């Protein structure tokens, strides 16, 4: 008998009732948790005017939007995509170039950046149409490395390794990115928009097709779902969202450099989705927000920060995989057995 079956058979009626109630309520909680958190985030500046917290949350919103886009391809469609950082960078560089060298307004530059990254994502999906599994992972890693190198070695366009500097003041909806509070609300609005959009997308026919392709692409094809089109749509939308986040990154940080879009940052974004889990948009977004926030809170730990974060990640993976649940069940069983044995044992004094 499997461990899980043993758990189900041994549990008391009260425990079973709790488990069933939790199983019923959990999807609802997960569905509404992020919108509630987003709503509460609008109130944070009223209870806390710490610029550090606002800056950390601003970066968390950018990461949240990035992973929401990546959740479509890596989470829902199951494409091992490690190139989200590339499209993030492409959006950032496009926006920076347009506002600086061509004097475009930020909103217009952002729209163009979204279009450019969307088209780039579509081209990427076309060129990798026949590449699957591990090979897709390799291609996406190669793209990420190549893009960072291109940005570093094309100083006439990208300002080279030292990064893109000299950005003008950028405004959106009358709010200036020079003001940290305005930047916070702009990034929060962008994140809310992306989240709502992605939540809608995953409930459409294409969203459900993505999950079908992930679990069994042969079955998906037999049902008339085009795996190629589904993957292309997930990559195109995900890239366009990354471009949008990149544009807001330019506004909020006002400095970009090739290293920010290299393999390591790109892999971190993919890691958030992997920890968050398959086909769960709220979970991946929560992971991105919480880990970005924790990274800053652990900064005071210095050298130990990386280790502590590693332990947090291990626990998160164990929790998602049910390892902690099984371990706690075994521990409870063992303790219950010990209590039972102690109760049944003859009293030594008698």
């Amino acid at each position, binding site marked *: 008998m499997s461990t899980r079956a043993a758990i189900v058979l041994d549990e008391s009626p009260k425990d079973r009732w709790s488990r069933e109630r939790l199983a019923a*309520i959990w999807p609802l*909680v997960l569905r509404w948790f992020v919108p*509630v*958190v987003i709503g*509460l985030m609008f*109130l*944070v500046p009223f*209870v*806390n*005017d*710490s*610029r*550090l*917290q*606002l*800056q*950390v949350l601003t*970066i968390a919103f950018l990461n949240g939007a990035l992973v929401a886009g990546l959740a479509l391809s890596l989470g829902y469609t199951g494409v091992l995509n490690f190139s989200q950082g590339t499209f993030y960078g492409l959006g950032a560089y496009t926006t920076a170039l347009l506002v600086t060298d061509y004097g475009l307004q930020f909103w217009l530059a952002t729209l163009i950046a979204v279009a450019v990254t969307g088209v780039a994502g579509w081209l990427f999906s076309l060129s990798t149409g026949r590449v699957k599994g591990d090979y897709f992972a390799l291609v996406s890693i190669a793209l990420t490395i190549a893009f960072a*190198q291109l940005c*570093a070695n094309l*100083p006439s366009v990208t300002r*080279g*390794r*030292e*990064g893109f*500097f*000299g950005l003008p003041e950028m405004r959106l909806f009358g709010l200036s990115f*020079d*003001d*940290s509070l305005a930047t916070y609300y702009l990034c929060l609005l962008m994140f809310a928009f992306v989240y709502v959009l992605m939540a809608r997308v995953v409930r459409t026919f294409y969203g459900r097709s993505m999950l079908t392709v992930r679990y069994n692409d042969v079955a998906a094809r037999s049902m008339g779902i085009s795996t190629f089109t589904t993957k292309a749509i997930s990559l195109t939308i995900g890239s366009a969202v990354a471009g949008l986040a990149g544009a807001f990154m330019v506004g909020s*940080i*006002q*400095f*970009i*450099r*090739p*290293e*920010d879009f290299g393999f390591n940052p790109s892999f971190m974004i993919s890691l958030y989705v992997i920890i968050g889990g398959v086909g769960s948009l709220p979970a991946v977004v929560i992971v991105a927000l919480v880990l970005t926030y924790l990274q*800053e*809170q652990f*900064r*005071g730990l*210095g*050298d130990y*920060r*990386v280790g502590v974060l590693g332990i947090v990640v291990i626990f998160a993976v164990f929790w998602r995989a049910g390892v902690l649940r099984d371990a706690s069940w075994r521990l409870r069983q063992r303790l219950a057995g010990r209590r039972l044995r102690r109760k049944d044992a003859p009293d030594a004094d008698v």
Partner: protein
Amino acid sequence: MRLEENHETTREWGPGVRWSCIRKLFVKHTFYLWGGIVNKLWKRGLRWSGLALMLCGVVGLMGCGGGDENSGGTTNGGSSGVKEIKILVAAPLSGDYAETGKDMAQGAELAAAYINEQGGIKSGPNKGAKVVIERVDDEMSTSAATTIASRYLDDDSYYAFLGFITSGQAQAAATVLERADLSLIAGFASADFLTSEADNIVVISPSIGNFARVAANFAVDEFGVKTVGTIAGDFSFLDSYYKGLTGVFTEKSVNYASKQTYPAGTSDFSALLTNIAAKNPDIVMCGAFQADAGRIAAQMRKMDMNMPMVDFIGDGWGETFGKTAGSSLQIGEFYEMTPADRFPEPGSLGAEMSKRYLEKYGKSINAPALHFFDGVLTIAAIAEMGSKGREDLLSYATKVTGEGLLGPIAFTADLKPKERWGTMSKVTGNGADDRELAARYVMYGETETVERVGE
């Protein structure tokens, strides 16, 4: 006597720390109480109430997460209640450049200990204040630089902010600080755009193009080179070095035949060196941190490339260079560039600090440590000039004078150092001190030129 025995550079147990502990205990028990209420509500079937309370708690915690309340850049810390000047030092303490980051922080701590040994800040409104260093890991990331800058803005117990290995981070942090009219002391970052794009950065290092100019001038003067090849790490600041090298080579009609760069993590340089060897250069110039430079030296000699190798990055070739280069240092000539006086007079500040650094940290003082040492000296000099707090640091920066390890502490109107020293030394063995003076230079901040001095 060792410095740390006498002078405090880190916070000790005292009233401030005690209150901090009490506050933490209070928060911890509030957390338990709150968790208990949520748990009880959950068990009684009031799940939505429990969830709402939990979310309120999350927002409340964020509300409590702000900086400490304090006053104007100086604090009364320590058990004796002595005034402190707290400096936030940002360096990469984790990742590929952690060793360099630790050198930076150690340089700052050595300077703090030295100042405190002299009785702290000697004049001005903060007279008698001790210097305290607080390290923070910047992960060598731009976004981390902005959050650290925000931390500095939040907590006005910090008197000054010294930091960063890359100019991109310094620029990003300066953008955040500019919103609050505060300034940054850029310890090691010194790309040319820093002072042109931001007017709230005091740059400790000379223009890094000048490091390259020193090395290039030395190569031309010493060897009369006609053809040069370079190999360098793909660092964010490399373009400024290339600009310096190209300027000198163009002016002196030297053929810059091969320019090879490698990404971080490279250990086999043979393909790049083969490309350089194909151009048959008179010398190879190396822009690599010491571990990579040592490997490049070893692989060059293994490939029978026995021409002189000249460092142009100025990070300092210490013990690690000697170990990784191994016996290859016995073949041909190697020259190191140091952005300081490598051979200070006995009894001078440079000689004394080199000795203390070696005693305290078990290694020779190198460029990152030298820069952060001078960064702290500059902040102390600004405080002694009469600066009341972090808001008016910049107005005093151009007025300071003093002696540092990199050269005189004095800045131009653009907040660049007026003069810095550069030394080219010949490597005579594997030890960090096995060096022989080859040439001395002065690097000028205002004109971005270099000049050979002495014999």
